[in-house]
Every structure is written in C-alpha cells, then in structure tokens.
C-alpha cells in the first residue's frame, strides 16, 4: 500500500511538469528542452527563499514566476531572434545551469532541518483537527497536500484554456495561419505558452525540493523525458476516453509512468537493467494503448 502511495505521490508532482510539457509538446508542437533546467530552477529559488526564512508556501509562487522568466527567455530567443525551437530551448537550458548554481549557492543544499510546506501542513492539521482524526490522516498528509496543489494547478489551467488567450494557444499549434488571419502574432502566443509551461515546471521543482528535502544541481536531468512519457502515455492511453479531459489524462499518464519505474524497482532485476525495464513497460503501455485505439476506431 505504501508502495502505491509513493508512486502516486511522485506521479502527482510530475503531473505538474506534464501539464507544462502538454502545452509545449502537445498543444504548441514545440520540443522545449528548457524544462530540464527550469525544474531545478524552481528548486533553487525555493532553496534561496527557505534558507532566508521566507514562508515555504511563498516559495511556490516565486518559483512559478522564475520558471515563467526562463520560458520567456526561450520564447524570445525563438520568436524574436528566429533561432530554431529545439536550439532555443537548449540554449536557455545550458545557461540556466550556471544560474541555478548561483541561485542555490552550491551544487547540493540539504533542507533536512528547515520547515517546508509539508511540515507546516502537518502542524496545521494537528492544530485544527481533533487528535484522533489528525493522527489517522497523518500518513496521507503529503499525498493530500500534493493532490491539492496539483488540482489547483489543473483547475486554473483548464480555466485558462477556455479564455481567448487559451484558444489562441490551441490555434497556433493546430494552424498558425488561422492566428495570422485573426491579426494576432503567433510568436507572441508561443511565448505565452512557453512562459506558462516553464512556470508550471518550476513550480513542480519547488514542490519536489520540499518533498525530497534537498536541492541537487543534477535533479533536472531527464525531466523532459519523464514529462514527455507522461504526456504520451496520458494522451494515447487515457485521452481517448471521452469523459476525460486532456489534463486528467496527463495526470493518469504521469502516475502510470511512475508506476512503471516503481514496478521496475520492485521486480528487483540486476540494477543495471532498471532503465531497460522502465523502457519496456513504457512500450507495453503504448502498444496496448494503440491496440485499444484501433479497436475504438472500428
């Protein structure tokens, strides 16, 4: 049971990243590698604020903002200076590595003894709820808080997609010409998309920091892979169910991906096979998803 709690918890945190990747990859059709650095950027901002005594909850919007700026950088490099999409993400990602290092101060910062959103949340539960209820909730408190943060993000995201700006975002990905005929600048719309995407990723970084209680400069490596895997599993497997929204599909995809990793760990093969097993499970999900898609089309 604990094992299931663990991957759901991890899956929910990575779902916030997957929302971001969903915007860039799925809606804008923009392969954005900035996320490998905007994820630790959110964590680095968190470290800086928490170590300076700022309330850990305030670190979340601050990380969101910082991530937005990194997305802005990629967007401007691409849309205003005409650098190719893949390359503009790589450029920002590379530069951010040094910036993250500067913000956090050093490459590895533990927060073992500092307050974080989870410890504060536990204190609030103990203060507000009667003792017997509080103690029965306690094992799930992390999951509850992560779920709340993720759901707030999801609901705001869904609402945004219904605004005019949200519709334009979809339009740019589908058909740039439509946006031009509406007398809108498709470059600006892309920039907005990248800002939101990386803001979300950095927010996830800040939540992750407080969950794992240490910052490490290497924590962003492979973020894009996990994000993409979550989005692709989500859309291919769960996205076809008519009652499921894109964002919900992405959440399920993220949990499914983390379940793959957890399963690979639990199976207990020689350690060097870990990545092979994760990849194989990922592939199985996709193949099964494609089969059921064909079935649905018939």
């Amino acid at each position, binding site marked *: 049971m604990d094992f299931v709690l663990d991957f759901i918890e991890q899956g929910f945190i990575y779902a916030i990243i997957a929302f971001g990747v969903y915007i860039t990859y799925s809606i804008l059709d923009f392969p954005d590698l900035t996320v490998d650095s905007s994820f630790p950027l959110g964590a680095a901002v968190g470290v800086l604020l928490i170590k300076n005594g700022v309330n850990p909850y305030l670190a979340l919007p601050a990380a969101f903002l910082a991530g937005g700026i990194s997305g802005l950088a990629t967007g401007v490099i691409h849309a205003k200076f005409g650098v190719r999409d893949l390359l503009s993400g790589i450029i920002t990602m590379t530069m951010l590595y040094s910036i993250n290092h500067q913000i956090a101060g050093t490459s590895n910062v533990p927060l073992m003894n500092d307050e974080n959103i989870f410890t504060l949340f536990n204190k609030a539960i103990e203060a507000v709820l009667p003792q017997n209820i509080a103690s029965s909730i306690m094992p799930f408190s992390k999951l509850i808080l992560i779920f709340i943060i993720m759901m707030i993000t999801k609901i705001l995201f869904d609402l945004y997609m219904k605004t005019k700006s949200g519709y334009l975002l979809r339009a740019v990905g589908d058909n740039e010409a439509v946006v031009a005929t509406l007398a809108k600048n498709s470059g600006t719309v892309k920039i907005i998309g990248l800002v939101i995407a990386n803001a979300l990723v950095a927010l996830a970084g800040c939540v992750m920091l407080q969950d794992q209680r240490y910052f490490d400069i290497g924590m962003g490596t492979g973020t894009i892979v996990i994000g993409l895997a979550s989005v692709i599993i989500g859309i291919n497997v769960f996205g076809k169910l008519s009652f499921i929204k894109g964002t919900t599909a992405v959440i399920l995809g993220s949990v499914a991906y983390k379940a793959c990793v957890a399963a690979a*760990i639990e199976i207990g093969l020689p350690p060097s096979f870990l990545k092979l097993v994760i990849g194989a499970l990922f592939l199985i999900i996709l193949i099964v998803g494609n089969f059921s898609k064909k079935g649905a089309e018939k």
Partner: protein
Amino acid sequence: MKKFISMLCVLSMAVFAGCGSEVTDSTAESSQTGEMVNVGIAQFAEHGSLDNCVEGFKLGMAEAGFEEGVNVTYDLQNAQADMATCNQIAQAMTRGDNDLVCAVATPMAQAAYNAAEGNVPVIYTAVTDPVAAELANEDGSSVGNTTGTSDKLAVDAQLQMIRDFLPEAKTIGILYTTSEANSVSAIAEYKELAPSYGFEIVESGISQQSEVSMAATNLAGKVDCFSNLTDNTVVAALPVVLDAANQAGIPVFGSEIDQVRNGCAATEGLDYIELGKQTGAMAARVLNGEDISTIPYETISEYSLYINSDVLANLGLSVPEDLQASANDVK
C-alpha cells in the same frame, strides 16, 4: 469496453509489481535457517569506488556474523545517477520490509534519510561531508536514525606525498565537477592547505563528462601534475584524464586505490573496500540492537600509500626512500 483495457493494463502493472516483491520475500524465507535480516543497499551511481563500497559493506557485515544467503538478504538497487530514480529507490527501500538500508553516496544518503522518516535505520557510506549534507551534527553525532562513514580525503597526507615524489613541482591541477558537493568542499581544502607545502592549486570545473577531455588537455599544459578527487564524473572518465596527462608527460595522483590500479602514479588514500567494511561493521552493530542515533559518523581510520610501479617507471619517477617501506605496489 475496450477503452478499459488500457486502464486494466496500468492496474495489472501495480499488481505485477506487488507480486515481484513477494516473490523475493519468499525466496529469502525459504533459504533461511535462523532469523533472516533484510538489508537494502541503495547505490547512487555505478563506478569502481562505489561498487567497492558495496563489496566492502558485505564483507564487513560477514565479519560481524551477517552472511549473505545465510542470515541476511541483500536487495541491491542502483539509481544510475538519476535523481528521480534515486528518490523512488529510496522510498521503495525504506517503505519495504528492510531492517536496515545502506545508502551509497551523498544524494542517495539524503534521499534515503528523508524517505525513511525515522522508520528504518539508514547507514550511509561514501559521503564526503556528512555535516554539510545535514546527515550529522557539527560535533559528528547522529541527527537521528542515521549514521555512516565519510570518504573524506587525507588532503594533508596527499600533498606531502606529492611533495616527496616531485620536489620541484609548483602547481597541481585538479579537475572537478561543479555539481558535486563532495568535490567543491575538497577543492576548498586543497586550496587552504596547498601553500604550506609550497604548491599552487589550479582547478578546472566541468559540468558533464563530455567536457573532461578538453578540460584535461587544457589543464595539463598549465601544471606540473594532476591530483584527483573522488569526483564521480572525473573518476568515471579516468582514461581520458590519464591520456591528457601522458601527452604532457606529467603524473596523475589518484585519490583511492582503484585509480592507482587503473593507471594513476600513486595515492595517499582511500581503500573503498576498507571503507565499506567499516560501514558494514557499523550496520551490524545497529542490527544487533545498538541505538543508531548514539553512533557518530566515522571516517576511514587508516590511509595508506599505494603506488603503481609501471606508471612511475614510464614517467621516470622513483619512490622516495623514506616512503619505500610503506608503499603498496598495486600495478
């Protein structure tokens, strides 16, 4: 209906995984004669030094009466230097039925200590600075439910050794990865101590393995010798470093025995197998009922001089007379 197949797939995955863990449990129990102890070993990355730690850990446990397959079962996992996997392994190991978790290298130690939440004792090894990693208090005492061994380098001894080998040398080049906290603190110590041995440290920071070659070639042209840290990235690319140094005709001094075996000239340093053994002995104490929070972290009790006579001969160097007695040749 078919829409649900995909749902089922994910569900079955979870069940499958659950089965996996039960299978290992039953094999463990079937082979047991006395009471079986489960120990999880969570390794951060795969390379010689850390592998030796694990090997040493098992030896140390065996010496203290915990023999693999007889009364202890090991579950070994390796995060392949991936932070996200590192967290998941830490969670799986500390939430499972392990009686103790051995975490190898700093990020894994931090992840395991955090995931354990006081439920499972965590013994760490190959953590250079447990105080900076917030795994130990300033006085070396445990922060609770964790203790272990540090692979802090004997920088003083290493500098003295380099001075003995190279009486004329002025500069020592050190390659390190800016993302590795261990290396950053070691560099600081080198810089602080070097002047008292008449050396100047020239460092070159890299951020990933692909940069080692360029940085090493560049640095080799500026210094009289290299000295290695226990930097994971640089050690993993040791052949590249050795090539660059050979081209420039300068020696590379290692930081532990395995590096000397692989072509470094000498080291006044660590034997990770010994470090692992010491860690295993500590783990055995905890398994025998000693309160982990009362055990302070330990550093390796002895450093020894290891040389590679073939490499020294190629460089035209010889072992200084007063070191000859204590030198162990590991060519």
